[in-house]
């Protein structure tokens, strides 16, 4: 008879679920302040991470999301990735109408299962399951629950209570349980200004609760990594794709990674070794040797991403890359390392977070943080960085994907955090020099040479290899201020030694000069109008950042039609601000010739939100003066 009470309890709970009217999910209960500017509301997001041992972690999720309109659908975020080391134990969802009545139940078999191969990956054995639900009304509420299990305890997900724009958050909870002997640690970021409480922090438990975070709007120039709250977590004793590791800091991680993952991956056949030695010949300078090897690698290989099993972390063997001629960033960097070691040039495998927004590896906090690999070559006190996935980049050039950030250099004696190359504002130059002439009908005919260096090289170097139609489209956009543009000739010279790209272009256009009556009006600055849009933002909330500065210099000779004289020339303009300097000069050389000089210098920097309007007005002055018109009158 002891069984009965238990049965009763089960029975009661079943009837309760069947009834499923959850008045707490009613959308009426959402406060107006959270709904403002929101497309969805996170009523509750609870993440329960349980680390039961060095080789086992489960992550449970419960998300209750009210979707107010179609644009909020992505906030449901009901998707789980899995692979050989990670399995989805449970995944289900319930849908409620705006009164809290259950309208649909979605079981695991109704979720879609898809391979995780995207455009840039050729093959991957990772897959994902996701919810594919067509809403029948708005607002509605989804209660999503999932549990995944993995042996990859090195990969504790970051907690990002706020990871979507236009979403208001009622409550977001993180609970982490862990044995006290695995060396659990955490690092908090950007909590200030948000209502986040640390509710438990003991040797085996950590909990946070974030409440009432109002919807955030995307504001341009926002440094996201500095604005939104985040918690990073890690273990000293972890497992990564089947390998146990015991690591306290980056130095020890580097050591472990070198011994467990990299060791034995750089062997090469005798034939290749001999070939490399022949190529390098009598060269003794390590950097000169590295240049020869880098060029060889660029010509021999191409980027193909294949992610199988530990492929996510372990590079393909150098011998295989040598044979196949392709690999991903890990494989190609490590292959280059192998080639360099043949000619006794030391180099180090380097992990980092690659993106155009600069992101650092946290120097005081060890956890897996990278998404990309490059190669590092010591050069006296400095380092040279090699992007091995590119077949075009000049030796040691970093562009905007890996520049100026903290990265992890893996040396045999241990890991080391190093900052990559900063491209100085004044070195990111674009120097334009050229001429144009106008006919009496206002038709334009000109020649220009544009030389780009530093991070500006990065944007221009790709032009050389674009198909002609796309290349033409680039110039028609770059010179959108010249209507009826015709490009007659384009020539490039790419000086990789000095990282300098020269474009020589000949163009013409009918009706550039706007004729009304006996006057002709046109903007003298035809070749380089600053078009960056800095829009007015109502109630800006976030600080803003100019991540890379630059300097543009123009000197253009303008030959006027003989039939006209100058009636009006804009005055010289000089503007200095904390964001940079702008200067234009109009010099009347003789009656038929004007020389136009322009310099725009923008500084990199981090500014408060109140500075934004000032910056906007600065740029407005620039674009207004870039567009300053001159007037010619027909000679009598």
């Amino acid at each position, binding site marked *: 008879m002891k069984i009965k009470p238990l049965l009763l309890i089960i029975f009661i709970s079943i009837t309760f679920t069947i009834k499923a009217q959850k008045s707490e999910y009613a959308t009426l209960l959402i406060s107006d302040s959270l709904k403002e*500017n929101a*497309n969805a509301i996170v009523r509750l997001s609870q993440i329960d991470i349980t680390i039961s041992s060095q080789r086992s972690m489960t992550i449970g999720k419960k998300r209750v999301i009210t979707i107010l*309109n*179609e*644009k909020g659908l992505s906030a449901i975020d009901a998707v789980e990735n899995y692979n050989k080391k990670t399995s989805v134990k449970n995944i289900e969802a319930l849908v409620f109408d705006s009164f809290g009545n259950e309208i649909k139940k979605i079981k695991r078999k109704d979720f*879609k*299962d*898809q*391979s995780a*191969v995207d455009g840039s990956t*050729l*093959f991957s054995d990772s897959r994902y399951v996701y919810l594919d639900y*067509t*809403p*029948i*009304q708005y607002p509605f509420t989804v209660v999503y629950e999932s549990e995944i299990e993995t042996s990859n305890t090195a990969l504790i997900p970051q907690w990002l209570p706020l990871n979507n724009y*236009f979403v208001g958050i009622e409550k977001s909870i993180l609970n982490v349980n862990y044995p006290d002997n695995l060396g659990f640690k955490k690092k908090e970021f950007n909590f200030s200004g948000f209502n986040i409480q640390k509710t438990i922090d003991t040797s085996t438990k950590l909990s946070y609760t974030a409440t009432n975070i109002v919807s955030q*709007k*995307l504001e341009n120039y926002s440094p996201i990594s500095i604005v939104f709250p985040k918690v990073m977590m890690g273990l000293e004793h972890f497992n990564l794709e089947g390998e146990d590791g015991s690591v306290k800091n980056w130095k020890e991680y580097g050591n472990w990674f070198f011994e467990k993952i990299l060791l034995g991956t750089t062997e090469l056949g005798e034939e290749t070794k001999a070939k490399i030695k022949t190529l390098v010949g009598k060269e003794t300078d390590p950097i000169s040797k590295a240049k020869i090897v880098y060029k060889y690698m660029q*010509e*021999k290989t*191409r980027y*193909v991403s*294949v992610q199988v099993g530990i492929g996510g972390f372990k590079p393909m063997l150098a011998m*295989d890359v040598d*044979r*196949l*001629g*392709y690999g991903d960033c890990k494989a190609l960097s490590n292959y280059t390392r192998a080639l360099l070691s043949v000619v006794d040039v030391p180099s180090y495998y380097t992990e980092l977070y690659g993106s155009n927004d600069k992101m650092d590896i946290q120097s005081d906090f060890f956890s897996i943080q990278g998404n990309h690999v490059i190669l590092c070559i010591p050069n006296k006190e400095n380092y040279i960085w090699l992007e091995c996935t590119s*077949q*075009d980049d000049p030796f040691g050039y970093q562009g905007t994907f890996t520049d100026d950030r903290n990265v992890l250099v893996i040396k045999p004696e241990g890991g080391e955090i190093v900052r990559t190359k900063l491209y100085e504002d004044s070195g990111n130059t674009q120097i334009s020099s050229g001429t144009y002439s106008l006919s009496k009908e206002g038709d334009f005919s000109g020649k220009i040479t544009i030389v780009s260096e530093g991070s500006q090289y990065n944007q221009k170097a790709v032009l050389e*290899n674009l*198909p*002609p*139609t796309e290349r*033409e*489209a680039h110039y*028609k956009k770059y010179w*959108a201020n010249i*209507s*009826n543009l*015709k490009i007659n000739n384009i020539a490039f010279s790419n000086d990789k030694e000095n990282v300098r790209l020269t474009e020589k272009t000949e163009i013409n256009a009918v*009706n550039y000069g*706007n004729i*009304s*009556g006996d*006057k002709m*009006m046109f903007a003298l600055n035809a070749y380089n109008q600053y078009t960056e*849009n800095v*829009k*007015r*933002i*109502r109630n800006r909330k976030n600080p803003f950042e100019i991540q890379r500065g630059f300097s543009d210099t123009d000197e253009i000779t303008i030959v006027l039609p003989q039939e006209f004289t100058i*009636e*009006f020339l*804009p005055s010289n303009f000089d503007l200095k601000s904390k964001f940079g300097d702008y200067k234009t000069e109009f010099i009347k050389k003789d009656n038929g010739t004007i020389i136009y000089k322009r310099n725009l210098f923008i500084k990199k920097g981090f500014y408060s939100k109140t500075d934004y309007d000032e910056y906007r007005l600065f740029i*407005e002055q620039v674009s*207004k003066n870039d567009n300053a*018109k001159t*007037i010619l009158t027909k000679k009598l």
Partner: protein
Amino acid sequence: MKTTTLLSTFFLMVFVLTTNAQEFKLGKVSMAELKEKVHPKDSTATAAVLYEKGKTFFEYKQDYGFQLCTEVEVRIKMYKKEGFEYGNKMISYYTGSSYNESVRFANAVTYNLVNGNIEETKLKSEGEFVEKVNENWERKKITMPNLKEGSVIEYKYVIKSPYVSTFPEWNFQATIPINYTEYTTNIPEYYNYKVYKKGYLIPKEVKKQLYQSIVLNTKIAGAMVGQRQPMFSAETIKYTDNQVVYSLENVPAIKLEAYVNSLNNYTTSLQHELSSKKMPNSLPEFFSESWEDVVKVIYESDNFGTELKKESFFEGDIDKLLVGIPTKEERIIAIFDYVKNNIKWDGSEGIYCAKGVKKAYQERVGNVAEINLILTAMLRHAGYDANPVLVSTRSNGIALFPSRAAFNYIIAAVVFENDLMLLDATEKYSMPNVLPFRDLNWLGRLIRKDGTSVAVDLTPKAVSKENTNMNLVLSSDGVVEGKIRRQLDNHEALYFRQKNLLTNKDSYLESLENENNNIEINDYVRDFELNLSKPIMETYSFKSSKAVEIINGKIYISPMLFLATKENPFKQEVREYPIDFGYPTESTYSINLEIPDGYAVESLPKTMNIATGENVGAFKYNIINQGNRIRVSITGSINEVVVPSDFYQSLKDFFQQMIDKENEKIVLVKV
């Protein structure tokens, strides 16, 4: 007569010579091919197909009869790194039933020239991948090893498919040049296919008959017990294979161009549609041949015609809905809105119901077939002459010839005032005869109750209008303050609603300010957001300090301010494909400008009235000055929806004249 014979020999000889110049056989890569640095006819080509030879034939399998077998061999030259993407190949195949398709790659080799010698690198299993995309599809991929600029690669693949009605499509054209392409079809006499050619190039054809035989083994029933081997009777069946060899030489790369409906419509390719099948000792089966036949097959399908006849599940709801609604138009709209509001589109296309209309109605979610068949059935239930219309959406390409695969979408049509009213309930902001853009693709096919059908023009006839009124006050310091009222109807309204109704108002205004030369907007009001029968209307006031130029004491102002078109949408020098505007449009502007005290008009832009030939586009610009006021009225219209490419230059010039005029300036001087 002599000349003809002579000519044909000459042609024949030339043909023989060219084909012999290169060997179109795997493994026979020549030194010349490896040494070639640029494509002789297209120096911009990053890679080129040196040859591609495909063959589709029928293979007899004792267990399940004939299956389609397609063998293709390709040789590709890599000129530049940018062409290395052609060193990867991916083929998708269906695995969603017990009769699966299969794909096999073979003979994949990369050839390089190393110190004057040809080096071969074979593709091994490490470079071949099978990806299970989802429960119905798999993909096989290869990535060629050891690619360098100058490499030549070769591979072969074999696709086997039991689905004889899904004959592979052969493309004679690609995004890189093709030096030689050949496709052979061997079709047994039992099958009849209609062959359709698409595109601007005409392949050469050589026909031949081949004699084949198959051996049928039949197990003899009632074989004796205890017999070791089962008894078979072997029967040899002879049949004719009809062979056609299609070929083309020197096929240029397809160029991507803007404002093209779908590039797929212009690619030279070959398609086969199964029209009938007659196996020995059985009656012939007829499939689609004419549009009438195609429609009949679709209509008689359980997932179409039968579903369309189901009514009982909604009768009560519709009867209740229509109580007290007097006019026919209002009743049609009521049903249309009812379907839009109550059944949501799950985003999937297709001409057949998936879960059925009843279930879709109950679950309030359905595919396009379910939604618009329910709509049709409801209109019929209400007593109207309503029918489904089969459509091929823009992304599906134009249905050039009768084929069931030609259609991927259904809308509804109802007779109203002796005309057809077209309805698509998948899009909540659509209106009668204002269909979502995806539907606007040439002709649809209306199916009547008796299974007969007729073509329906999907091109919108109603002009979509944009109407702007602007009152401007200019002050002597160059600041313009103004009020704008802007109205959009039909497709312009549909597009506006789709794009903006859910956008946060602040964000909308920020981008509106930004797009309009950083004006400052205040008092923004939007009317008739959800009242679809009315044009959408926005009114706001604004201030602009950048619209005007003051030079030497004179004020230069273009009366359209920031509303003037800035760029000509037609930038290319030449155009190969027709220009597709989607629907006819008309934009009108009525501007009233008050000039500052103490200023007078020095010059005004001249009035203008231009039109392209055949009335494709027209533009009128009128301007008058009365005292301190300047009134401007401007009308621009596009009256033809699809314009052939030979009209491109005049259309481009027309746009340029219009844009120049819109940007022309009024000059004011101090008095």
